């Protein structure tokens, strides 16, 4: 095991792996990526894999659009087919409030150059005849949204980083970070120590705990989110479909399985990820109403992962004012997978060049919570 590195990244999810990749790509290869379990074992490996650019906050739209560029080029650039598919996202509006919000958002998103359109109920029905769209007001449809396989994305970044010289250490748990006079000295793991000056907290659901290692009280907490996958069927559903008021999202994977989930307002913060019957029951009662053909389709596997939440449901990408060279990319709620390429790129630039170059992420600073903030509304 390497016992000295310029940068140590805590967390082998998609964010940590993308950061490692972009560090190496920018010439900084003296990097160790620490993962306590296997790559993608955290939220990444448990997520829905959706990639959406339709957000209510401008910053998220930009980051997502930048990421989509990377997803498009992923196979050529990083060297692995990640089952990326631009089948679009279809957002369903059922209330007047939603209708107004969608109109406002779509206008803003179009300003940013996004290929998003509003569809009337009739247009939506014509396009997706197999869905029951009773009560629908309108929908927002963006064909360049899509999805990819989160495991393969993480493996792709990590393997490519490894090839450039990054040391990827799985089954290695970061236990403590030794700090002297506000400067990072050493990361202590269960398999040895790494002398290091720069640490990136990409610990996903454990970002708060990773912050505590250097004595910071980062404003993130985690919530269980459940999801399941059905047996494979012939391909019929191109877009990922979301309804915010009905609280669901659903998509069909490249292998034909349907993946779907919902948020649960009763969840308490914590690190518990055992799935429950309540979720399966609620989803089974609900989903066939919107997708009648699901009634006889069988559920194969059911699991849960953590949403790491900041106070405004938007990521925090910043470096600490108190601890020198302690970076963090955390609090991604339900959209860290899709943002990871742009975030990894920006963070790596920050570390290597002293500032993020490709996108502006100043709105995602930790300080925003002192100023007051608006919550991202387009979340399940």
């Amino acid at each position, binding site marked *: 095991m390497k016992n000295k590195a310029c940068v140590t990244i805590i967390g082998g999810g998609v964010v940590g792996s993308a950061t490692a990749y972009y560090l190496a790509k920018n010439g900084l290869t003296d990097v160790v990526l620490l993962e306590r379990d296997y790559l993608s074992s955290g939220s990444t490996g448990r997520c829905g894999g959706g990639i959406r650019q339709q957000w209510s906050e401008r910053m998220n739209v930009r980051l997502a659009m930048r990421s989509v560029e990377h997803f498009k080029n992923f196979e050529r650039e990083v060297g692995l087919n990640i089952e990326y598919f631009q089948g679009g996202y279809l957002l369903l509006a059922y209330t007047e409030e939603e209708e107004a919000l969608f109109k406002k958002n779509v206008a803003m998103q179009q300003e940013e150059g996004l290929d998003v359109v509003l569809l009337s109920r009739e247009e939506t029905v014509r396009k997706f005849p197999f869905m029951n769209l009773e009560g629908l007001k309108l929908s927002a449809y963006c064909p360049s949204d899509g999805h990819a396989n989160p495991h393969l994305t993480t493996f792709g970044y990590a393997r490519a980083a490894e090839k450039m010289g990054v040391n990827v250490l799985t089954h290695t748990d970061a236990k403590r970070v030794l700090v002297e006079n506000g400067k990072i000295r050493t990361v202590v793991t269960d398999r040895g120590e790494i002398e290091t000056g720069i640490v990136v907290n990409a610990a996903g659901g454990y970002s708060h705990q990773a912050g505590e290692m250097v004595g910071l009280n980062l404003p993130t907490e985690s919530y269980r989110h459940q999801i399941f996958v059905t*047996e494979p069927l*012939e391909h019929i559903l191109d877009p990922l479909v979301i309804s915010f008021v009905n609280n669901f999202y659903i998509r069909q994977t490249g292998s034909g399985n349907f993946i779907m989930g919902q948020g649960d307002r009763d969840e308490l913060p914590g690190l518990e990820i055992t799935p429950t019957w309540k979720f399966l029951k609620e989803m089974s009662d609900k989903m066939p109403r919107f997708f009648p053909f699901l009634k*006889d389709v069988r559920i194969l596997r059911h699991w849960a992962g953590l949403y790491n939440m900041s106070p405004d449901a938007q990521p925090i990408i910043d470096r600490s004012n108190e601890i020198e060279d302690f970076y963090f990319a955390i609090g991604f709620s339900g959209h860290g997978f899709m943002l990871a390429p742009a975030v990894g790129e920006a963070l790596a630039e920050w570390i290597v060049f002293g500032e993020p170059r490709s996108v502006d992420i100043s709105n995602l600073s930790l300080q925003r919570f002192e100023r007051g903030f608006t919550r991202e509304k387009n979340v399940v």
Partner: protein
Amino acid sequence: MERIVEHPLLKFERGEKIVFYFEDVQMQAYEGETIAAALHANGVRMLRITPKGSRPQGLFCAIGKCSSCLMEVDGKANVRTCITPVKEGMRVRTQKGRGEKSE
């Protein structure tokens, strides 16, 4: 593949005689048998053709654990025929590839 008529130890108490259809061909079965068992008694062993490699597959575990016996039954795809009882008039088809969405 045939039914055992005489056995040194066992006596088979078969249910009512019924008919079902495999690929529209009428076949005989006894109430209480699984679809896969009834098909075997009629000499049918190939139950599905896999989606990727188009490999023929048939009964393997017979207790609903392996997915090798998935067939289309009365228009429904992905039915585990080794644990589903055969019923009068049932229409059974070889499943080719992934199940189509059922109507």
